[in-house]
């Protein structure tokens, strides 16, 4: 019989991501099984890999569960009004074009109340990266139907099943003018990290949609099990199809989810065009 190894009492170690997290605010408010935390991990890993000057990176969030990200990341960070993270970020980018500006918010915030800002920032090609966590529901307020809720899903405000067709976010982003569009689930940690890194390096309006389980409000009312069950479902039912035309990216209730990088193109950014205009009118 082998000798039993004595269990070592581990010394208190620092969290590996401590330099980029506000440890004085941990524990965070997110529920067990939620995908926002892993998305934050992916973002922080991407930043560490890229070796950006972190003094120059700023995170702007709106309102909602994902809206709380700004409060946990140890960078210059703003928790703004509901839906207005993108215009606030636009002001920051124009105020100081040397900054790397990241909008981190949810589907309700960015596509519903902030939908107009999303469209116009994409059209102008404002040089910001949008990390959009899509949990198919308004979770912070207790699970109301969202413009991303799949048809037939139950929510507290669609008690007989949702009948409104949801937005296809990658298609919306592409049509509006985004230069980089990708979608992953919060289970695709490595691919998500890579995509966020690409998006951060891409000049112009880049969007990374992250499908995240809401283990509290979406899963419970739809009887989809625990967070781990939703994660397993998303993992087993996502199909990677890089370059898939965005019109094919509708999400149907508990059906396959197409993930991948769909758009990666070049367009002059707002600031490039602005500076050209300033230069031309001068002469």
């Amino acid at each position: 019989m082998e000798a039993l190894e004595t269990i070592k009492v581990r010394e208190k170690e620092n969290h590996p991501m401590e330099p980029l997290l506000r440890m004085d605010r941990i524990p965070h408010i997110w529920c067990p099984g939620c995908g926002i935390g892993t998305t934050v991990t992916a973002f922080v890993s991407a930043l560490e890999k890229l070796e950006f000057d972190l003094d120059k990176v700023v995170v702007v969030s709106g309102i909602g569960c994902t809206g709380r990200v700004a409060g946990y990341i140890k960078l210059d960070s703003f928790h703004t009004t509901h839906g207005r993270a993108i215009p606030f970020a636009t002001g920051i980018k124009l105020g100081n074009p040397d900054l790397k500006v990241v909008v981190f918010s949810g589907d309700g915030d960015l596509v519903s109340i902030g939908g107009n800002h999303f469209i116009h920032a994409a059209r102008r090609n404002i040089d910001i990266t949008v990390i959009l966590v899509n949990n198919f529901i308004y979770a912070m307020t207790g699970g109301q139907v969202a413009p991303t809720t799949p048809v037939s899903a139950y929510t507290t405000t669609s008690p007989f099943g949702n009948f409104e067709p949801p937005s296809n976010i990658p298609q919306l982003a592409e049509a509006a003018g985004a230069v980089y569009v990708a979608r992953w689930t919060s289970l695709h940690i490595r691919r998500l990290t890579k995509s966020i890194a690409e998006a951060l390096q891409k000049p112009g309006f880049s969007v990374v949609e992250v499908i995240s389980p809401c283990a509290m409000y979406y899963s419970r009312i739809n009887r989809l099990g625990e967070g781990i069950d939703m994660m397993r479902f998303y993992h087993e039912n996502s199909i990677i199809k890089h370059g898939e035309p965005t019109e094919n990216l509708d999400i149907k209730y508990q059906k396959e989810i197409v993930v991948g990088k769909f758009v990666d193109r070049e367009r002059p950014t707002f600031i490039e065009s602005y500076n050209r205009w300033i230069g031309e009118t001068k002469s």
Partner: protein
Amino acid sequence: MLKADSKGVLSGTYNLSGNEACIEGAFVAGCRFLGVYPIVPSLEAVERFLNRCRETGATFIQMEDEIAVLAAVLGAVWTGRKAMTVTSGPGFSLMMENVGLGVMLETPCVIVDVQRFGPSEGIPNRAGQGDIMQARWGSHGDYEVIALSPSSPQEMFDLTIKAFNLAEEYRTPVMIMTDESVAHMKEEITIPPAADIKIRRRRYYKGPKNNYLPFKWDKNFIPRMVDIGKGYKFHVTGLTHNERGYPVINAETQELNVHSILNKIRLNSDKIVEFEEKNTQDADVVVVSYGITSRDVSEAVEQARKEGIKVGTLRLITVWPFPEKRIAELAKQVKAFVVPEINYGQIYFEVERCVRGEANTLSVFHDRSRDNGIHNILDAIKRALKESK
């Protein structure tokens, strides 16, 4: 305080509209960011800014709506710019959401509301004064604002500089509540040499980078700022927050947060309040007015004096905070107050509140688009005096 940056100062004498003079004042004050959504009757200001933004190095953006405009202005301010927007009633309504954010994040900026008739679309190209109470109470929750009311193009210039100085001094949004008439009228204005203009520099935190508290209230309740991108790694939120800017959801923090927002204006209101008083020493009636209305009031008062009525005037330069103390003092001395406005009684209620029944108070709807406007004021002066006896 520092001297104005000569790059933005077109020293000299010009014939400018109120809208144009406002932008010149903004450049002098160091404003280098304008966010707008096009709306009548504020557009001459936008055009002036565009024509001058190359030489001043300023940035301009036309956003998708006024909600986005104020969000962008607040964002730009945190990068170290001085920033502003110009709008009118319908746009002002949309901005109210982020006025609250500006108050909560204690973000200095200037919002110019060229008032027109309302409600809703109203009459886009006629002067109104119907947004005065909205300026004070338009966003939800408890807060104080600073709002100025110019009555000439020269004052549009002067008060825009003052607005930026007050915004930086008290770290708060400041509103310029002008109107279509003042904004569109052209008059001679004088822009002094840069060296003669005092500009309030932003108050920055200069301590260790890891110890910045965005809402560390000093004895005057005015916290210091830092710019994004300088390594302070700060966080601010529109939620009720502590000194560090972190959300804290309890009654004590709510009280501390809101009290500081209120107190920094309330405790300094004697320093902020500005008004112009004429002929009140012997007055039986005092006419309280602001903006374009005060110009018609001067004419009506001149006529009343000729007719032997002892009438004085108090012209508001700051509409908010309101000169409560002075009105209360005058109430003990005079028989009546007349408050002509291009609305159906807004500042009138403020006057009445401060008068506390000590004198008769009369509201006059002053409709400038009708030619008997001045007579309405004159009649009101006589009626107020008669009713007070």
